[in-house]
C-alpha cells in the first residue's frame, strides 16, 4: 500500500514537472496553428497547404525566426468534419495558445470556426477563393473574392472571345450559388438576355455528366459563341472534363473557364483533350518571375519531389504568412489585437512579381490572371488585369449587400457597415 502511494506521489511530481517544462518550452517558441484536413474528402486539397505552411515556417526559422524566437508549427487534423474544425480551432487557441492559425478550405469549415475565433479573439488566415459576403475582425481573406476572379474572367470572355451565350455550371453550394448570382446580375447589366444564360447545379462529387454535357452542347449549337463558366468543385471536375473531351467539346467550340481548377486538380487529369480551356486565378505556377522560381525551387526541395506543382491557395498562404510575419515585427508582439491593427496596410511581394497589400476590409490586393490549360498540366497566362484588384467583401451586384462596406480601422471598426442606415449590424 505504501509503495503504491509513493508511486502516485512520484507520478504527480513528474506530471507537474513535465507540465512546467512544457510551459518553459512554450515561452521560447511562437506557436502557429495549421488547421487543414489531412483525412476525409478535403484531404486531397488541404494536405498540400499543410506542407506549404510547414515549409514557410521552416524557412522563417532558418532566417532566424520571429522576434528572436523560433516558430513552432502545431498541426491538427480536423478530418473534413465541420464541427471538428470548431473543436480543433478552440483547442489550438486555448490549449496550444497559438499566435495565429492558418487554415480551412471550404466555406463551411470557415463558417464553423468563425464564432470561435471571434469569441477568443485570435487570428485566422484563410487562403482560398470564396464567395465573399463576409468580413470578420479575426479573419484575413488572402484568397480571391468574386470580384477578383469571376468578373474579370467574364469580361475577358466577353471582350476578347466575343462570347454571347453563357452556361453557368456549378456545384450546389454557397460559393457557386453566390458567384452565379453575381455573374447573372452582371451579365444582365451588360445586356445579355435571359434566354442566353443557362444555370445548372449538380451535387458534390457528381460523376455522371452525360446528360448535362449533352445539354450544354445543344445550348451551344444555337449559332452564337458560347462559353461555360464553371464553379464545379473538386472531385466532380475530372469526370466533367472527361465527358467534355469525349463529347467533342473543345476549347475553340465552347471554352470552359473554371474558378476551382488549378494545377493540383489538373495533375489528376490527362490534359491533352483540354488544351485551351481556361481558368481564372491570381497566380499560376507558370508565372514568370524570379520570386516564383525561387518559391518553386524551395517547394520542390522541401517536398523532395520535383514533379509537385504549386497553386493559387499556396500563394495565398505565402502572402498571408509573410503579411503576418511583417505585422508581428511591426507590432513587436504576437498579441492578436496588436497584429490586427498593424497588419492593415502591410505590403509584401506576391509570387507574380508584384506586391499585395492588406486592405482595411481584411481582403488583399491581387492581380487577376486568365490562363489556358496546356498539355503538360500547366496554365499559360493569356490575359492579366492591368493593375491590382482589391478584394471586395460585399458584392455590388447583390441586392442584400450592395449598401454594405467593411473597414476595420478604428473609427469605424465594422465588417458590415450599412451606408444607407449608418448602422453596423450584429455589433455588440
Amino acid at each position: 500500500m505504501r509503495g503504491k502511494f509513493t508511486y502516485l506521489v512520484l507520478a504527480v511530481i513528474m506530471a507537474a514537472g513535465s507540465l512546467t517544462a512544457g510551459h518553459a518550452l512554450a515561452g521560447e517558441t511562437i506557436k502557429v496553428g495549421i488547421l487543414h484536413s489531412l483525412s476525409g474528402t478535403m484531404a486531397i486539397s488541404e494536405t498540400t497547404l499543410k506542407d506549404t505552411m510547414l515549409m514557410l515556417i521552416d524557412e522563417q526559422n532558418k532566417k532566424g525566426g520571429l522576434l528572436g524566437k523560433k516558430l513552432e508549427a502545431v498541426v491538427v487534423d480536423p478530418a473534413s468534419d465541420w464541427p471538428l474544425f470548431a473543436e480543433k480551432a478552440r483547442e489550438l487557441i486555448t490549449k496550444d495558445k497559438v499566435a495565429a492559425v492558418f487554415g480551412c478550405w471550404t466555406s463551411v469549415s470557415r463558417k464553423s470556426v468563425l464564432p470561435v475565433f471571434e469569441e477568443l479573439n485570435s487570428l485566422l488566415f484563410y487562403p482560398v477563393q470564396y464567395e465573399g459576403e463576409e468580413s470578420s475582425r479575426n479573419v484575413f481573406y488572402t484568397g480571391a473574392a468574386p470580384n477578383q476572379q469571376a468578373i474579370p474572367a467574364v469580361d475577358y470572355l466577353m471582350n476578347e472571345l466575343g462570347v454571347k451565350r453563357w452556361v453557368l455550371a456549378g456545384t450546389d453550394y454557397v460559393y457557386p450559388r453566390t458567384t452565379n448570382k453575381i455573374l447573372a446580375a452582371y451579365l444582365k447589366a451588360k445586356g445579355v438576355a435571359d434566354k442566353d444564360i443557362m444555370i445548372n447545379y449538380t451535387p458534390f462529387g457528381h460523376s455522371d455528366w452525360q446528360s448535362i454535357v449533352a445539354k450544354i452542347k445543344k445550348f451551344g449549337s444555337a449559332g452564337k459563341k458560347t462559353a461555360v463558366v464553371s464553379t464545379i468543385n473538386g472531385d466532380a471536375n475530372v469526370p466533367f472534363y472527361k465527358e467534355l473531351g469525349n463529347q467533342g467539346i473543345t476549347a475553340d467550340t465552347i471554352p470552359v473557364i473554371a474558378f476551382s481548377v488549378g494545377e493540383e486538380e489538373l495533375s489528376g487529369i490527362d490534359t491533352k483533350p483540354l488544351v485551351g480551356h481556361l481558368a481564372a486565378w491570381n497566380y499560376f505556377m507558370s508565372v514568370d518571375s524570379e520570386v516564383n522560381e525561387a518559391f518553386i525551387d524551395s517547394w520542390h526541395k522541401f517536398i523532395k519531389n520535383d514533379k509537385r506543382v504549386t497553386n493559387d491557395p499556396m500563394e495565398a498562404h505565402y502572402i498571408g504568412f509573410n503579411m503576418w510575419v511583417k505585422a508581428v515585427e511591426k507590432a513587436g508582439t504576437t498579441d492578436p489585437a496588436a497584429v490586427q491593427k498593424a497588419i492593415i496596410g502591410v505590403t509584401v511581394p506576391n509570387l507574380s512579381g508584384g506586391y499585395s497589400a492588406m486592405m482595411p476590409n481584411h481582403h488583399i490586393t491581387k492581380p487577376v490572371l486568365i490562363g489556358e490549360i496546356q498539355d503538360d498540366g500547366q496554365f499559360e497566362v493569356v490575359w492579366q488585369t492591368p493593375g491590382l484588384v482589391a478584394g471586395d467583401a460585399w458584392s455590388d451586384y447583390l441586392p442584400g449587400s450592395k449598401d454594405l462596406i467593411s473597414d476595420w480601422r478604428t473609427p469605424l471598426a465594422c465588417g458590415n457597415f450599412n451606408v444607407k442606415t449608418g448602422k453596423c449590424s450584429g455589433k455588440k
Partner: protein
Amino acid sequence: MIILRYLKKDTGGMITLSLLALITVIVPICNLLVPETSGLHVSTFTMTLLGKYLCYGLLAIAVDLVWGYLGILSLGHGAFFALGGYAMGMYLMRQIGSRGVYGNPLLPDFMVFLNWQHLPWFWHGFQWFWFAMLMVILVPGLLAAIFGWFAFRSRVTGVYLSIMTQALTYALLLAFYRNEMGFGGNNGLTDFKDILGFSLQTDATRAGLFIASALALGFGYLSCLYITRSRLGKLCTAIRDQEDRVRFIGYRVENIKLWIFTFSAILAGIAGALYVPQVGIINPNEFSPLASIEMVVWVAVGGRATLYGAVAGALLVNYAKSYLTVAMPDAWLFALGSLFVLVTLLLPRGITGLLRKKEASR
C-alpha cells in the same frame, strides 16, 4: 421506485450514473469557480468537449436500444440526430434576429444572401423555444414512426432493414445539401448568438448546456433501463432472438418494434438538439451514412446490449478520435480502423464485455 430496483441489479449502470452525477457537479464548478491558474481548473474547451461526448453517449444509448435489445441494426440514426439538431438550429437562427450581418430582422443571413424575400413556411414558429423543443421530439419521432410503420408491417428485417435505414439518411443528406430546401445547404446553420436569452459565448451558458446534456443522458439511461427491464423489454429481447416465435405466440411484433424504434429516434433527436448549441454548427454532414455507421461502431466497441457499454463506447471512441487527430494526424485512421476490426474480432461483446467476463470469473 421500480427503476431503483432495476438499477440495483445493473452494476455498470450504477457506476456510469454515479460518475455522470459526479462530473455534472464537478466539471461546471471547476470551470466557473476555480481560477484558471489552478491545476484543478477545467478549461472551457474540455467542458464543451465533454458536453459533446455526453450527447454522443445519449445517441449511443438510442442506437443500442434498437440494436442491442431489439435486433434492428439502424444505419440511419444519424438522420434522427441531425433532424433534432436542425430543429434546435432553426430556433437558434431565429434568435439572431437583426444581429445578422445584413441586419434583416426576419430572414437568417443565408436567405438574404440568396435573395429570398420571404421566410419559408416551415421556419415559422421556431422563434419560440417551446415550439422548437416540440419539433425536436416530433420531427424525428414522426419520421421514425412513418418509416417504421411501412418497414415493420411488411416485415423487412435484417440487412435489408439496415440498408433501407441507410438509404433514408442518404436521401436526407442529398436533400439537405440542396440550397432550395431552405436549410442553408452545405453550410448548414451557424453563427448562433444566444439561447433563451443567454449568450452562447459565455462559460456559464456552456456549463448550463453541459448540465442539461448530463441530465438528458441520465434521463435517457434510466428510461431505457426501465424499458429494457420491463415486460416490454423482455419481449424486445425475445423478438431479437426469435421474431417468428413471438409472432406465433400472438404478439403484434410490428407494434412493439414501432414503439421502441420511435422512442429511440426521439432520444437521438434530443441528443442532436443538445449537441448543436455546444458545437455551434449543424450541417448536412451529420446525415452522412458514414456518420451513422460510426455510431453503431461506438456501441459495438462499448458492448452491445448493455446500456452503460454504449455510453462507454461513445466516450472512448470519440476521445480516441479527439486525441489521435492531434497526436498522429497522418495515421489516426489506421488506429481507428484497427480498433474496429480488433474489437469485432476479439471482443464480440465489446470492452465492457471484457470487464463482465472478469467479474464472472472472479
